[in-house]
C-alpha cells in the first residue's frame, strides 16, 4: 500500500565527489567546519574523542601516534616514526621521531609519552578502562622508544594509539596548568589553540613548527551548531561553514549526489540503530527479554522497511544483521526476518508472559519508536513507550543502571577492525554487559578476531558471531547508519582516519 521511495543511489563506504586539485597546494586561508557538538575538554587523558565529539579538534592540536589509513585498511605511524609488534602481537614498540617538540618548546619524547599513558590509565575516564584491561605495562627503552606489553594478543592494538591515548600532551603544560589544562592545551600537532568559546566556536591557528611542515591553512575554526543537521545544512548552503559532519540519511543522500558539488567521506556503520533487549541484568532479573521466545517474537515483529519508511522517509539503510550490506565483514549467515505470524507464535510460547513490555527511547526519535511500538503491539505486545529527555539519561538507564526492558540505542560500529573489536567486546563480548547477555562462542570468536592479522580469518570469526547472534537474539539491529563528513569542492586533502577524525595538516583551499 505505502509507496516506497525509489532509491536509485547506493551509498558506498569511502570518499565521494573528490576531484583532483588543479595545481599545487596553496598556503593561506581559513577553513570553518560546523559540528553539532564540539570538544568538551582538551585533556586527552579523560576523553574518548571521535569525529563527532572533539576528535578533529584534539587531533589538530596533538596529532596521534598512529593513524588509520582508510585506503589501505590498516594502521600506520603518524606522530610516531614507526610502530611494530612481536609475532603474537603482545608486545609493541613505538619509535618516535627526532627533534619533534611541543609548541611550548619541550621535547616530544618517550618520557612525555609515558607520562601521558600513565595519566590516562589513572584518570578513570576516557580510555582508561580499556587500556587497563588490555595493556600490561609500558616502558621506555630509550629516549625515543616506548615498549608496550599487552595482556592478550591484539593485532590491531595501534588503533588505541590512533585515539586519545595516542594524543600526547606536553607534560610541562599539564603540570603547570593543573585543572585549567583542559582549556589551554599544548601539543605538537599541526595546529595550536588560538581562541576557544566552549559551546560556540573554537579557533585554531597553524603550528609553524609542525614536524611535517607548517600546515597550508592559516587557521581552522570549528563552529558549534546544536540545532540539528537541517540547520547545519542551511548554514552550509548559506556559506557560513565550509564543511560539516552529517548523519541524517536524507541529507547524506542529498550530498552524495554528484550534482551536489561537495566532496567528502562516507562511512557506513554497523548496528547503527539497535533495539536493545535486556536479557536479564541484575537490576531487572525478571525482564521479559530473558525468555528467548520473547526475544524471538520481538525480532520477528520488526519490519525494518516500515521503520525506514515511517521514521526516515525511506532514506535510511534498513537491515537486521549486525553488519551492513556494504560492510567488508558482511556475510551470508542468516539474519532476522519480519514474520508477524512467527512472532505471534513465539509470543504464545513465552510462558507466563503477559505481553507487557517497556520501551525506552530518546525523545528525538519518536517516530521510529512509535513505529516499533506499533509493530510490537500488532503482534500482541502491550508496549509502554517511555521517552527519555536527555541522552545522558538513556545512557544512565541502559548502561549504568541497566534497568530497562527494551531500549532504542545508537551503536554505530565501523568496519575498522580496532574499533570494531573494542566496541563489540565492550557491548557483548564480556560478562556483565548492558544486555545481560553472555555467549562463550561469541566471546571466543571476538578474541580470535583480535589475535588475527589476516582479513579472511577475521571475516570468518565475524560470520560465526553473526550466526550465533541470529540464533540467540541478544538484540535487534534495525538500521545501518551513515556518517558523512562533507566539505566544499575547493577544499582539498583532508585525510580521514579512524572514528572519522579528520587530519587537516595537509588541507588547503584552492582559489
Amino acid at each position, binding site marked *: 500500500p505505502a509507496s516506497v521511495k525509489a532509491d536509485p543511489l547506493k551509498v558506498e563506504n569511502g570518499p565521494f565527489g573528490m576531484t583532483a586539485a588543479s595545481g599545487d597546494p596553496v598556503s593561506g586561508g581559513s577553513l570553518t567546519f*560546523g559540528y553539532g557538538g564540539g570538544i*568538551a*575538554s*582538551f*585533556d586527552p587523558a*579523560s*576523553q*574518548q574523542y571521535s569525529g563527532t565529539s572533539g576528535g578533529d579538534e584534539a587531533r589538530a592540536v596533538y596529532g596521534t601516534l598512529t593513524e588509520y589509513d582508510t585506503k589501505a585498511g590498516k594502521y600506520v605511524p603518524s606522530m610516531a616514526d614507526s610502530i611494530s609488534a612481536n609475532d603474537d602481537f603482545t608486545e609493541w614498540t613505538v619509535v618516535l621521531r627526532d627533534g619533534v617538540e611541543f609548541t611550548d618548546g619541550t621535547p616530544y619524547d618517550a618520557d612525555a609519552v609515558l607520562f601521558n599513558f600513565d595519566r590516562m590509565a589513572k584518570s*578513570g*575516564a*576516557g580510555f582508561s*578502562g*580499556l587500556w587497563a584491561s588490555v595493556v600490561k605495562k609500558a616502558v621506555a627503552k630509550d629516549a625515543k622508544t616506548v615498549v608496550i606489553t599487552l595482556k592478550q594478543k591484539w593485532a590491531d592494538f595501534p588503533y588505541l594509539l590512533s585515539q586519545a591515548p595516542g594524543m600526547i600532551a606536553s607534560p610541562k603544560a599539564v603540570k603547570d596548568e593543573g*585543572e585549567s589544562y*583542559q*582549556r589551554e592545551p599544548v601539543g605538537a600537532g599541526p595546529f595550536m589553540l588560538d581562541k576557544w*568559546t*566552549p*559551546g*560556540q*566556536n573554537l579557533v585554531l591557528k597553524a603550528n609553524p613548527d609542525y614536524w611535517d611542515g607548517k600546515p597550508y591553512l592559516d587557521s581552522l575554526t570549528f*563552529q*558549534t*551548531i*546544536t*540545532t540539528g543537521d537541517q*540547520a547545519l545544512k*542551511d*548554514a552550509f*548552503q*548559506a*556559506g*557560513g561553514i565550509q564543511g560539516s559532519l552529517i548523519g541524517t540519511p536524507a541529507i547524506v543522500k542529498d550530498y552524495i549526489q554528484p550534482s551536489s558539488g561537495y566532496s567528502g567521506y562516507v562511512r557506513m556503520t554497523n548496528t547503527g540503530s539497535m533495539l536493545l533487549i535486556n536479557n536479564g541484568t541484575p537490576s531487572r532479573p525478571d525482564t521479559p527479554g530473558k525468555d528467548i521466545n520473547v526475544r524471538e517474537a520481538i525480532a520477528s515483529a520488526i519490519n525494518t522497511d516500515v521503520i525506514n519508511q515511517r521514521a526516515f522517509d525511506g532514506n535510511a539503510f534498513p537491515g537486521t544483521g549486525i553488519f551492513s550490506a556494504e560492510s567488508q565483514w558482511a556475510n551470508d549467515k542468516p539474519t532476522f526476518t519480519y514474520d508477524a505470524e512467527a512472532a505471534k507464535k513465539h509470543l504464545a510460547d513465552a510462558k507466563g508472559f503477559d505481553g507487557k513490555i517497556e520501551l525506552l527511547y530518546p525523545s528525538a526519535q519518536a517516530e521510529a519508536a512509535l513505529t516499533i511500538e506499533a509493530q510490537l503491539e500488532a503482534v500482541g505486545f502491550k508496549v509502554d513507550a517511555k521517552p*527519555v*529527555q*536527555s*541522552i*545522558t*539519561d538513556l*545512557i*544512565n538507564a541502559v*548502561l*549504568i*543502571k*541497566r534497568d530497562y526492558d527494551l531500549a532504542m540505542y545508537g551503536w554505530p560500529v565501523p568496519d575498522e577492525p580496532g574499533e570494531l573489536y573494542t566496541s563489540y567486546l*565492550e557491548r557483548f563480548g564480556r560478562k556483565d554487559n548492558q544486555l545481560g547477555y553472555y555467549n562463550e562462542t561469541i566471546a571466543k570468536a571476538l578474541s580470535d578476531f583480535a589475535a588475527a592479522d589476516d582479513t579472511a580469518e577475521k571475516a570468518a570469526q565475524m560470520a560465526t558471531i553473526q550466526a550465533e547472534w541470529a540464533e540467540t537474539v541478544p538484540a535487534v539491529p534495525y538500521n545501518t547508519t551513515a556518517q558523512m563528513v562533507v566539505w566544499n569542492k575547493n577544499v582539498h586533502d583532508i585525510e580521514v582516519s579512524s572514528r572519522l577524525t579528520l587530519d587537516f595538516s595537509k588541507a588547503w583551499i584552492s582559489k
Partner: protein
Amino acid sequence: MKAAAGKVAQLLVVMFLVSLGTFSLTSLMPGDPAVAILGDNQSPEAYAELRDKLGLNEPLVERYFTWLGHVFQGDLGTSMVPPNEDVTSLIGSAFAVSIELAVLALVVALVVSIPLAMISARRPDGLLDRAASATTFGIMSVPSFVSGLVLIALLVNQLHLFPRVGWVGVTDGLGQNLYHAALPVITIALLEIPTFTRVLRGDLVRTLQEDFVLSARAKGMPAWRIMIFDAFRPSSYSLITVLGLSLAQLIGSTVIVETLFSLPGMGRLVVSSASQGNITVIQGAVLVIAACYVLINAGVDLMYSVIDPRIRRVGA
C-alpha cells in the same frame, strides 16, 4: 527610606526563594554530569565514583547551603562538566549575548512600535488603526518558532541575506556582530512589537482624550507635536512596565530563538546544562536572571518617577 529598605529586603527574599526553588527543582531534573563527563563507555563503578567526587551524593540542603556560602563570597563555582569553566565566566559570556539580543530586540521593537502606535492612535478605529491592529494581532498569534522558521526559509534559504546560525561577539567587529544578530533580533522583536504597539496605542488613545491634549490643541499646537511632546510621555507608563517585564523575561526566555539560531545565550546555557544535570551552572544562571529581574523591576520603578513627577514626590 524605610519603604526602600523594605523593598530591597523583599527583593533579597525573592532571590533566595528563586535560588532555593531552582536548586530543588534542578536536582530532580534528568541528566547526569557523571555521564556527561565520562561518556558511554565506562564501568558503572566509574560513574558512581565520579558522582561521589562531584558531591552529588550529599544531601540537597547541604549542597545548597555550601553553594550559598560560596555565592556570598562572590563565587558561583565551576561547571561540573568539562571543560569545567568558571560558572561566572560561562554566564558572563552567555549573558552578554542574551542581553545584547534582548536590548537590540527591544530597541527594534520600540522603533517599530512607537510610530505604529502613534499612527494608530491618531485616528482610533480608522483605516490605519484597524490595519495596524489586524497586523499586530496576526503577528502576535504566530509562535516564535514558526516565525523564526518562516524567516529562515525566506531570508536565509531564499534570499541569502543573513547567516543561518552562529554568533560573533562585538569584540570581533560590530558589523559582523550585528550581521549575525540581525535575524534572531528580528524574530524576538516580532514577539514584542504587537504587545508594545497595543499597550502604547491604548494609553495614547486614552491620553488623547484627556483635557490637557485638548488644551494643547486649543493653544494651536499641531497634532504631531501634541502626540510627541504632550501625549507620549504620560502614555508610556504601561509601556515601561511591559518593557521592563519583557526585558527581564527575554534574558532567559529566548530559548526558542537561541535554539533556532544556535546562539550561545542564557536560555540555551540553562537548557543544555539541564540536560547534563550541570546544577552549578543552572543555579548561577537562574540566580543571575532573577537578579536581573529584580534590578529591572527597580529600574522600572525609577523610570516611573522620571516619567511622572507625581510619583516622584510620593517616592521622595
